[in-house]
């Protein structure tokens, strides 16, 4: 049986919900699935992973817990674990952390790596992924001793495949390359979901008129458990920080629901949210490009519609 590993990512100490879709992408009765997680305290994940077909949970420990804050050291630890357990195929999330860790691993192993996979076929070693600003879907064949796949969040619906999960500890003894040193780590907003992984996003554009008005999106987001995004216009005008920008030169997002408020819909904006499951467009202009490519459109004043949406969602709870 070929061994396939899935790299576990956590948020505030818990497995990220979007990770179960990654496990599903790797599920196959023919293979033995291993989950790799950093830190001794991850042994408690076994019960959560059991229903998804993980046979072995490998908790990777190091003499000092701090050593895993170094991205290069994390990559070395994964490579060491892959070698030890004879793992040649690795799946992980195309998150911001994944965009650093997976290429580090692939580069050291000289292994093929495809990020943002929408689907993976392990039998013929092909994947589907968007290219050219999300305008095309490419089928890519990977060849190599190892293969590494970054799965786009929220694209694969998790499926259960219950097995017994055994926990194994892998003690990593390596030392970091002293040419790369982490001086400081400042965590992002506590509990906040990164745009690239959010299941629901509500975004504002030119129609928001100023930065203060984003508060009404924040309030609505809080009720829905959503993240707040913005168009390039809103960022260029200094209303919100670049970390909120959805689009070509901002963040590519793939939520189940994308609500575009006062966003006309440039090609570059679509390039960042085209794979959203459902798109809602709220705009005073019924002819806006976004209106033509949405699932549900309301032609009207977002300053009236969004507070009404917040109110009604609150009432539903």
């Amino acid at each position, binding site marked *: 049986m070929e061994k396939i590993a899935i790299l576990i990512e956590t948020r505030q100490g818990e497995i990220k919900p979007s990770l179960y879709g990654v496990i599903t992408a790797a599920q196959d009765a023919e293979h033995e699935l291993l989950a790799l997680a950093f830190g001794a305290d991850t042994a408690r994940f076994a019960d959560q992973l059991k229903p998804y077909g993980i046979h072995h949970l490998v908790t990777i420990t190091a003499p000092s817990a701090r050593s895993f804050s170094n991205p290069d050291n994390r990559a070395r630890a994964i490579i060491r674990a892959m070698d030890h357990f004879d793992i040649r195929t690795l799946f992980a999330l195309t998150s911001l952390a994944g965009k650093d860790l997976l290429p580090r691993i692939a580069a050291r192993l000289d292994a093929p790596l495809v990020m943002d996979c929408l689907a993976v076929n392990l039998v013929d070693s092909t994947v589907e992924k968007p290219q050219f600003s999300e305008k095309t879907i490419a089928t*890519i064949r990977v060849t190599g001793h190892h293969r590494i796949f970054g799965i786009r969040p929220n694209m694969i619906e998790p499926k259960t495949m219950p097995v017994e999960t055994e926990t194994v500890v892998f003690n990593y003894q390596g030392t970091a390359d002293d040419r790369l040193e982490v001086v400081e780590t400042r965590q992002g907003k506590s509990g906040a979901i990164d745009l690239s992984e959010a299941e629901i996003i509500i975004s504002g554009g030119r129609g928001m008129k100023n930065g203060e008005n984003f508060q009404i999106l924040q309030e609505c987001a809080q009720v829905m458990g959503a993240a707040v995004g913005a168009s390039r216009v809103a960022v260029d005008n200094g209303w919100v920080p670049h970390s909120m920008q959805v689009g070509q030169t901002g963040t590519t997002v793939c939520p189940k*629901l994308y609500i575009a408020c006062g966003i006309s819909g440039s090609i570059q904006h679509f390039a960042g949210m085209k794979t959203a499951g459902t798109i809602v467009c709220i705009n005073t202009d019924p002819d806006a490009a976004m209106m033509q490519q949405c699932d549900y459109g309301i032609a009207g004043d977002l300053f009236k519609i969004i507070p009404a949406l917040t109110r009604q969602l609150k009432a539903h709870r």
Partner: protein
Amino acid sequence: MFDAALFYLRPHVIITDPMNIYVCVKHVPDSAATIRIVEPNQIDENITFLLNPYDENAVEAAVQLKADSDDTDVIAVTVGKPAAIDTLKSALAMGADRGIHVVTGYWPDSIVTARALQAAIIKDGLPDLILTGKAAIDSDGYQTQFRLAAALDIPVATHVGSIARNDNSVTVTCGLEAGGEQVIRMRMPCVIGTAKTLNTPRYPTLPDIIKARKKEIREVSIDHLAIEPPDSRMEIIALKSAVQKRRKQMIAGSIEESVTELIRRLKGEARIPLS
């Protein structure tokens, strides 16, 4: 040339070799271009191509670092078809000193690209810093900077939003999720993958563009670089248009009515788990 007068006037200046900053740039289709698939795995390249937007930030950072130090050479390097020379010219117009074009007859994957960049750079000189965009907007692979660093056996950081140069190291900040940041110090030489937040790329003026015409671009065929053929490959075997079928339903009525209807449809037919 050793200028004694200058040396004594500015005793803090230590005479060293010039600092070499290599900037790796990619020639990519304009994000606004209409992509037409012409063969199972090819696009019609008769569209506007330009300097990859993330690489613009890398060029800008290199030109700014050059402005801060007395003796710095900024060399733009690209790997690609003959048309990619235009992207080198863009980098030269932004202020790079010279260019190297590794000419190919096809668009190689990032494994081959990194090997070609490594071979071209070490053939040219000793790098102190290598800058490139965190990703290219055509393939969105996020990996060439890491492969190049591994090939050269030097450290790398990506998604970099600030660069501070020290004597023989650089301190960079890398974006983490939800607005977090990690401050990393790397010994030089090293590779940096630049993010949009790093700077605002300059817009070359007409005189800049004319001046850039006189700058040297060295062309070398990839076949002359004696690159060891890799065992690993990533190969595009098919391309299709990404068409997402949308419902395109307009919801009318009063504010309250249309919001009620929207929630009903989102929870119902769209199966969105609205809490």
